[in-house]
């Protein structure tokens, strides 16, 4: 754990008076899949957004590859390799699939290799190649999720943070989504996976954190957390 790619230290985040995160600290090493699990409203999405710079934390530090990126605007964080697949997919509905992907490659770090990355994304998601001219808003939920992932990959991230990638998708597509997450990790991407699907995400994760009411309550390896009584009772209903 010496070579942490992402290091979060004592992060506090407020929405007005409501505290969404309090003193959240975590470390993610290069090459890991780390799951962040917790109930609805525990602060999982807030944590991702605060790391990415979409929300501004009131206190705490975020370091990426040793660089302090606390308070950086999101586009600068993307520029050094932070990738984010947002909750609800957030595709550009009136732009074509191809234009959506091009937007992912608008980063300076990604422009030179745009063609090559696009081929790679199309090989991962042949469906996107078939529908490249279609408006993204006309895609199915699963296809939009693939587009959101593909668009993120176009920016050549080193870390990719998935926010509820399985939300609202059919079971078959959820399975496919987890397969893709694992495959991207095998290709060298570091993955942060925020999920309500606790079982599935802890199964593919090397390590996990349990977030409750904006605090980290537990952490450990995937198997450890899966066998932890508290996790089993609270999240797995066992």
């Amino acid at each position: 754990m010496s070579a942490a790619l992402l290091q979060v230290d004592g992060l506090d985040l407020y929405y007005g008076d409501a505290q969404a995160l309090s003193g959240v600290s975590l470390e993610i090493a290069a090459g890991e899949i780390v799951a962040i699990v917790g109930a609805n409203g525990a602060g999982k999405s807030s944590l991702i957004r605060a790391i990415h710079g979409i929300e501004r934390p009131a206190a705490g530090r975020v370091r990426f590859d040793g660089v302090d990126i606390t308070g950086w605007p999101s586009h600068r964080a993307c520029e050094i390799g932070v990738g984010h697949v947002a909750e609800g997919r957030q595709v550009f509905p009136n732009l074509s699939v191809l234009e959506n992907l091009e937007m992912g490659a608008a980063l300076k770090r990604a422009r030179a290799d745009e063609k090559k990355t696009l081929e790679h994304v199309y090989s991962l998601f042949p469906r996107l190649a078939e529908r490249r001219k279609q408006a993204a808003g006309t895609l199915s939920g699963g296809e939009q999720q693939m587009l959101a992932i593909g668009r993120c990959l176009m920016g050549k991230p080193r870390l990719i943070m998935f926010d509820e990638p399985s939300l609202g998708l059919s079971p078959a597509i959820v399975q496919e989504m987890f397969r893709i997450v694992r495959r991207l990790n095998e290709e060298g991407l570091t993955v942060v996976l925020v999920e309500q699907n606790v079982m599935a995400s802890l199964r593919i994760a090397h390590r996990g954190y349990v977030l409750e009411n904006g605090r980290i309550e537990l952490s450990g390896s995937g198997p450890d957390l899966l066998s932890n009584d508290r996790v089993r009772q609270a999240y797995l209903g066992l």
Partner: protein
Amino acid sequence: MSQDFLLSLAQAITKGLLTGMVYGLMALGLSVIFGVMRVVNFAHGEMMVVGMYLAWAAFDYAGIHPLFSLPVIALLFFGLGYGLQRGLIQPFINRPEHQQFLLLLAVATIVVNVCLAVAGPDSRGIQLESQFDSYELGPLVFDAVRVHAAIAAVVIAALLWLFFTHTRIGKSIRAAADNHMGALVVGLDVRKLYAITFGVGAACVGAAGALMITIIPVTPFLAAEYTLLAFVIVIVGGLGSMTGALLGGLLIGVSEAVAGLLIDPSLKSMFSFGLLIVVLLLRPQGLMGRKDSR
């Protein structure tokens, strides 16, 4: 007699269509700004008037034809719009609409009074040789200056369309308008894109001003009228729709010209507002507006 009337009606309609293209370009600026960042530029007519004054000054002092000063004015307006957005409007972007309204109203008031202080209340027009030229098509006669202005407006609108569909920045602006969170997530610099958008919108209205001065003389008091006119056009055409703005411009241009022919030129606004009311009653989202857009 009735054939004479039909001819003058056709004449009025063509004149309205040509002027309407320039109106459309002006309204395009308002529509682009609103469509992307949901800010209504209440200083739009004031910017138009500044564009007209600049083109007038370039002609009056240096003899530069408005068609040649136009690119410079557009570029200058792009810079002004960019700066205005970055420095003044951006801090207001998430504030309630009435605060944005007050801010831009203040800008409008300042601009129009600076015009009044510098250029005075008298109307300033330019005398071009081409103002006496005309083109004939069958029985119809087209004023050369209007034809030139309309062609220039069409060319600029086409360039704008190419910008939004074929350049990375243009597509990024559409993306940011489409899904703000999506734009943040993929790492688009939304603030910069907003500033560019305001710059582009300002450049449109500056260019429209440079064209308009070849058709009518300018006074500071035209500003409020143009702001209102741009609203009417954009609402008739559909908020945020580029083709809607152009179509709305044509319709308003024609309705003004026909009103001038049928009743009295000073009652032309009655027709424009009448058209606005009809559109709001029958198709509240505007002619080209999408139903779901707010």
